[in-house]
């Protein structure tokens, strides 16, 4: 990648790849559009609601995993752009999770008793619902002003809930499958890799801090 020399030297230079964050938003919303068009044309098959529920669930997991891959990617490559698309990816994941839940509610005729029964009695649904609940405060504190209000350290701790959410999401996917666990296995491996990177990096950082005598 080559960047213009003047940009490099200016102190408040424009961020590189300025089109990337809006591009991620547009690209992330495209599957929803495709889903809508497929629903209208009948391309979702004989059981379109079921299909749409599955697809929005998969998109949620994929986007969550991508948002959590941003920091490791930035650390491994020293690229800066992953940090600038992380928020968009996280919010898109929330949008698809909300859509997934809305479709599930529609599927069950918005009957509170049915939903309550599912959430309380069926671990498969409990896990998915818990993941969604965890994403709510993250989406609500995604603004710059929320970071300021909470203070960065607290905001960061809160946003580690994303790891719990993606793990619960992967579990929900695993429990939701009848027999073939290929998809859920891939999801679980990706989540495990994200956790591993996070743990290793956290340990490395602690060691560095210990060396520098910065013990907390």
């Amino acid at each position: 990648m080559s960047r213009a020399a003047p940009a490099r030297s200016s102190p408040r230079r424009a961020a590189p790849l300025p089109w990337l964050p809006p591009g991620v938003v547009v690209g992330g919303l495209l599957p929803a559009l495709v889903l809508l068009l497929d629903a209208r044309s009948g391309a979702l098959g004989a059981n379109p609601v079921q299909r749409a529920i599955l697809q929005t669930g998969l998109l949620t997991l994929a986007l969550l995993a991508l948002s959590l891959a941003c920091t490791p990617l930035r650390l491994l490559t020293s690229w800066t752009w992953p940090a600038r698309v992380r928020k968009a990816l996280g919010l898109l994941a929330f949008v698809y999770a909300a859509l997934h839940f809305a479709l599930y509610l529609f599927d069950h005729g918005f009957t509170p008793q049915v939903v309550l029964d599912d959430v309380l009695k069926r671990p498969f649904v409990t896990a998915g619902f818990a993941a969604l609940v965890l994403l709510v405060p993250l989406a609500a504190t995604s603004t710059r002003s929320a970071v300021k209000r909470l203070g960065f350290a607290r905001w960061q701790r809160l946003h580690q809930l994303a790891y719990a959410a993606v793990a619960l999401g992967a579990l929900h996917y695993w429990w939701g499958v009848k027999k073939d666990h290929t998809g859920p296995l891939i999801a679980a491996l990706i989540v495990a890799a994200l956790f591993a990177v996070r743990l290793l990096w956290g340990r490395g950082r602690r060691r560095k801090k210990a060396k520098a005598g910065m013990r907390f």
Partner: protein
Amino acid sequence: IAQARRPLGPYDTSEAVTPYAQATTYNNYYEFGLDKADPARNAGSLRTRPWTVLIDGEVRKPVRVDIDTLQSWFPLEDRIYRMRCVEGWSMVMPWLGFPLAALLRRIEPTGKAKYVQFTALNDPKQMPGQRDAVLDWPYVEGLRLDEAMHPLTLMAVGLQGRILPNQNGAPLRLVVPWKYGFKSIKAVVRITLTEKQPKTTWALASPTEYGFYANVNPSVPHPRWSQATERRIGELRRRPTLPFNGYADQVAHLYKGMDLRRFF
């Protein structure tokens, strides 16, 4: 082509029949793949002629019979049945076939016969899904003898006035309309009368989720979802699921005194 409407028989439902295009492209048939669209794509490799069916076990007249001879033994009947999948969707299927009872009477079960075991074809060359050990092949299903003798229980060879499509179980499949769809085994090659309850494929694969009886029962939830409602294919909203899939008047007496929560 408009078909002449025949008068409805005593076992027929008058509900709207599921369009042929949907009934033949949305199938659970793991022998041809795990996705519902897979069987329609992959079942072309199944050769349904010549096809022989072995009927043996606790019978006085065991026989190995060609499918065309077998179906010439009985007058074929139209039956419009509801079909409820354990996953929570349903269809209305106009089958063509003969009552299993007629076949059983012909081959004469002995006094020891208590169950009927059905075995499907086991040939990974014709059934590519069998290269995947996702289930223990061949697919095996079973019924209690009185369930097998019930007039609703059908051996189907046709669908909607046509020969049964491969993805729907050609050339010979079981249809038990008051039980979840997985009981209605496809591509049957063997029917064995037994003294002991057969070990059936899904009940072996996941005993907490799929029982031997598998009667449609809205009040016994699957561990992962409620069975109280279902989506009729082609409809957007769910509808309530009926006990015994709406055939309670005909079959509930078979289970008198049984705890249907235990024998799910």
